[in-house]
């Protein structure tokens, strides 16, 4: 049974429809990437999974249960961790507090301890240095790292990442790449990734979907597929 399944999901902003009958699945522990050029609806789709964007048709299943009408916080508590585009750092909370705010998602989940896992600081040593600074004054890349770390604090079963490498320095991109591989392998966390950076996407995911004007136009395994063979779908 897939961990997350979208069945014919449609969504619209006011009069203008953005997603048309999108089908998408992510198996437990699987990493999937969602590609598409600017403005095709990738963010909209992720927000719909999170419950931040109303769905005008179709269903969203988590672990087989219909969550289409579930409030966002309940979805987070089911184990969906989200790193939004624009990072969503709480600007007036300290880095430490930003991390702790992720603990809320652990309420009512048996068998998890409500503390910040140690590997977070291993993965992002920078955060330790700036822990008492306000989130809002961090540099773009620092914020991006914080957002990733915070999503991991929620001990998710699936991580939803909206362009997580945007604005991050090359060496940290490598770190994140390794981290995602490890998280998947060791903690069996599934990943749904939106990324412009094809090599990065290819190195951490095993399956891909391509979205064009709100419609899935291609999908398949990344293995054995040259990322540049789909580049034409991503251009104007």
């Amino acid at each position: 049974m897939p961990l997350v399944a979208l069945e014919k999901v449609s969504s619209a902003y006011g009069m203008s429809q953005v997603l048309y009958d999108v089908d998408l699945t992510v198996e437990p522990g699987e990493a999937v990437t969602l590609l598409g050029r600017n403005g095709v609806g990738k963010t909209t789709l992720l927000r719909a999974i999170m419950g931040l964007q109303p769905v005008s048709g179709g269903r969203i299943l988590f672990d087989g249960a219909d969550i289409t009408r579930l409030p966002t916080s309940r979805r987070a508590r089911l184990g969906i961790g989200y790193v939004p585009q624009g990072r969503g750092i709480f600007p007036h909370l300290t880095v430490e507090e930003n991390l702790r705010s992720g603990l809320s998602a652990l309420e009512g989940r048996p068998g998890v301890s409500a503390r910040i896992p140690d590997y977070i600081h291993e993965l992002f040593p920078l955060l330790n240095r700036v822990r008492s600074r306000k989130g809002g004054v961090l540099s773009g890349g620092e914020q991006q790292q914080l957002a990733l770390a915070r999503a991991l604090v929620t001990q998710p079963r699936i991580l939803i990442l909206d362009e997580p490498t945007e604005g991050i320095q090359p060496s940290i991109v490598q770190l994140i790449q390794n981290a995602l591989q490890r998280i998947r392998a060791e903690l069996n966390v599934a990943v749904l990734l939106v990324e412009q950076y094809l090599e990065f996407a290819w190195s951490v995911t095993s399956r891909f979907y391509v979205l064009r004007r709100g419609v899935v136009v291609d999908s398949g395994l990344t293995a054995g597929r040259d990322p540049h063979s789909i580049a034409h779908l991503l251009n104007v």
Partner: protein
Amino acid sequence: MLKHAQFPLYALALALFAFAPELVSPYHLSLLGRFLAFAILALGLTLVWGYGGILSLGQGVFFGLGGYCLAMHLKLAALPPGEIPDFMQWSGLTQLPWFWAPFRNPYFALAALFLVPALLAAGLAWLVFHRRVGGVYFALITQALALALSTFVISQQPYTGGFNGLTDFSSFLGFTLTDPSTQRLLYWLTLAVLALAFAFCSWLVRSNFGKLLTAIRDGENRVRFLGYNPTPYKVAVFALGALLAGLAGALFTLHVGVISPALIGVVPSIEMIIWVAVGGRASLAGAVLGTLIVNFGKDWISSAMPDLWLIVMGLLFILVVTALPGGLTGLGASLRRPVPAFRFPFRFPERKPSSAPTVSIVAPEAEDLP
């Protein structure tokens, strides 16, 4: 100037109002007259709030100042030469205070009723805006202004008539105010001023100035980095709003024959905001509509169920704001929306700029802009 498609509609409305003296009872005409005066103020508030994003909770102050400037002249005009107004006598004054003297001249009073509110507004706005304080801060400061000024006017009874205000006028520029024909003229005058103000405002909001104003409302700081200093524009629009309020106050004083501190306090100032909110804050036509509806409604409800009208008013405000954020003129737009706001189980506020919580003035929906 006006959108062509809407022009016939406005012309029709204007004609209808112009014939009102033939259509409605004298009492309702007199109500309509004073409410149209209110509508002039509401236009200003739409500019200031709807387009400029500056909420003024002290518009009554400017309304009152305009009213007082004219009333001072009317009071003096009603006196035999050499006398001073009655309330001064019984407050112990024997001489006309210096700042009253020039108001004998009607043209001075006319100039003052524009300038005094506009200058006070400009001064206050500059002091606050040049320090880059805005939004809610400014709203609450204007509210304090309304409180302080109304208390002050009451306390300066020898000079202002105190709590009683100024009343008992006889004529203006040779017209006897109680004369029915003067009342009619006054009505048309008010209508004409309103029409002019309307045309001016709609020209203004469609001009580049209006665009800049909207830009400043959306992102004052961003606009600075595009090379504009927002302060003078904000000061200008706030002063313009005050000027329109002063004009409205003066016309109102002519209609009612009384101006008193009760009209410049905190409560009336908030009511003025309500007129605009009901009509749709970013629509000039909405401002006029809202003003007329709320005031006629108030007149009607307070007669029909005097004990209940506060409650009904209260419910109305809550309803308008929660269920109809675009006001009456926004109603059309929200009906056209395919996904109703309440269907989604969890309604979030409009998406704010990503990691930025702000106490900023809420932007009206773009669709609501005329």
